[in-house]
């Protein structure tokens, strides 16, 4: 196992595993988000959000942050090394003719997602965790009682933000689109990096990657869109 993680393929393995882990989180996140669309009273979504505060999930939350940090750190190291591998660039380069845009710009797309994530965490996570009240930056989250259990009115927080701000709606739509773009390449690429691919499976995985990317982008994007057009 010596020097596995410092080798080029080892670093790609780290990107792949952390990426796939983040993908599983996205699936859970999207499922709960879609509760917003199916219940305009917000009860279903609040229950979903409350479920995400159980002790097991709280531990996974730390693992998730670690996963994000690892994914971003390794991506930065890889990108710096890759830039160094070509100290003198080409005067004329037509990269668009041999590889698609998303695959060539994963670091930039990832950077946009990171900026979005910081805004997103400040909007919701920061306030739900009570940091808003504590530091006086942000806003306190009201409480509701559903089936005799007191919990955060997360629905009011989300709906309040997206109903009152076209700007935030657009930020969330952009976030969803960039996430989709990242996944068009990231999803199948993760399997390629761990060696689970051949001529047949690469085609299959690419199709699944595009489908998954569209589901994620549409799924997350439809929520701000429906608030924007007043359907939610």
């Amino acid at each position, binding site marked *: 196992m010596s020097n596995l993680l410092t080798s080029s393929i080892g670093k*790609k393995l780290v990107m792949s595993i952390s990426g796939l882990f983040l993908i599983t989180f996205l699936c859970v996140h999207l499922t709960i988000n879609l509760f917003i669309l199916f219940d305009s009273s917000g009860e279903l979504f609040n229950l979903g959000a409350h479920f995400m505060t159980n002790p097991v999930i709280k531990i996974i939350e730390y693992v998730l942050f670690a996963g994000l940090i690892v994914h971003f750190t390794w991506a930065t190291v890889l990108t710096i090394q890759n830039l*160094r591998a070509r100290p003198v660039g080409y005067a004329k380069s037509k990269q668009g003719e041999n590889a698609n845009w998303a695959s060539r710009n994963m670091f930039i797309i990832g950077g946009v997602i990171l900026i979005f994530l910081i805004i997103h965490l400040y909007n919701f996570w920061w306030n739900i965790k009570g940091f808003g009240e504590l530091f006086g930056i942000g806003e306190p989250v009201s409480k509701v009682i559903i089936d005799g259990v007191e919990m955060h009115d997360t629905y009011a927080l989300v709906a309040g933000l997206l109903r009152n701000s076209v700007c935030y709606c657009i930020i969330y739509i952009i976030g969803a689109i960039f996430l989709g773009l990242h996944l068009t390449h990231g999803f199948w690429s993760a399997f*390629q990096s761990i060696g689970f691919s051949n001529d047949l499976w*690469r085609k299959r995985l690419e199709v699944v990657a595009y489908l998954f990317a569209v589901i994620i982008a549409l799924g997350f994007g439809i929520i701000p869109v429906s608030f924007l057009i007043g359907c939610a």
Partner: protein
Amino acid sequence: MADTILKELTLKVWRQKDRKSKGKFETYKVHNVSTGTSFLEMLDILNEQLVSEKQEPIAFDHDCREGICGMCSLFIDGRAHGPDRDVTTCQLHMRRFKDGATITIEPWRSGAFPVIKDLIVDRKAYEKILQAGGYVSVNTGGVPDANAIPIPNEKAEEAMDAAACIGCGACVATCKNGSAMLFVAAKVSQLALLPQGKVETARRAKAMVAKMDELGFGNCTNTGACQTECPKGISISHIARLNREYLLAKVKD
């Protein structure tokens, strides 16, 4: 289609005296080039012209000129081996260019492939990777009977597809990361798929990847640009096999 004549071409060519000098682009005009001329023949015409003008001819790599030796290189108009698919520069013909066109010609750009002179780069890094493990250890003795070991046809075909690699360096040149993974993957695959080479697969994958990393090639991000530009159309599925063989070998350590 009958050949026609390209009346004038403008060439922007990278000139560099030696490894240490700073290079720059020089612009040259070439007149009356037949569309049936190969790209390298067009450069020969330009060099004749330069020699007759008492100028230093442009240095570029070439050997067989039939697309199998892997010597020719050149980054032509932003593409490795020029605009055609599945061909080396020597097999590229001037019919792919329009009369009056400006063509930019650059050497491979990679930290691991330093420019020696003009358009010639030092590709010894590839030899070093091969020396690290791109072979089958054979003990001396009598000549073994050919075809004595049964090999499934599809394995043989796949190994041959990988063995088509001519080591030209187009994959490194075109990769946005300057990664040599397609080359290393082809060299690992061609042996790993066959019984004679399978025995040493783990050692080979580890040694060749370690050497590749040491020489300063970039990391693969699976853009697939290499397989598009590879004159032999080698698939990135071989990279998946290399990843698999390497990771398995490392886990077993």
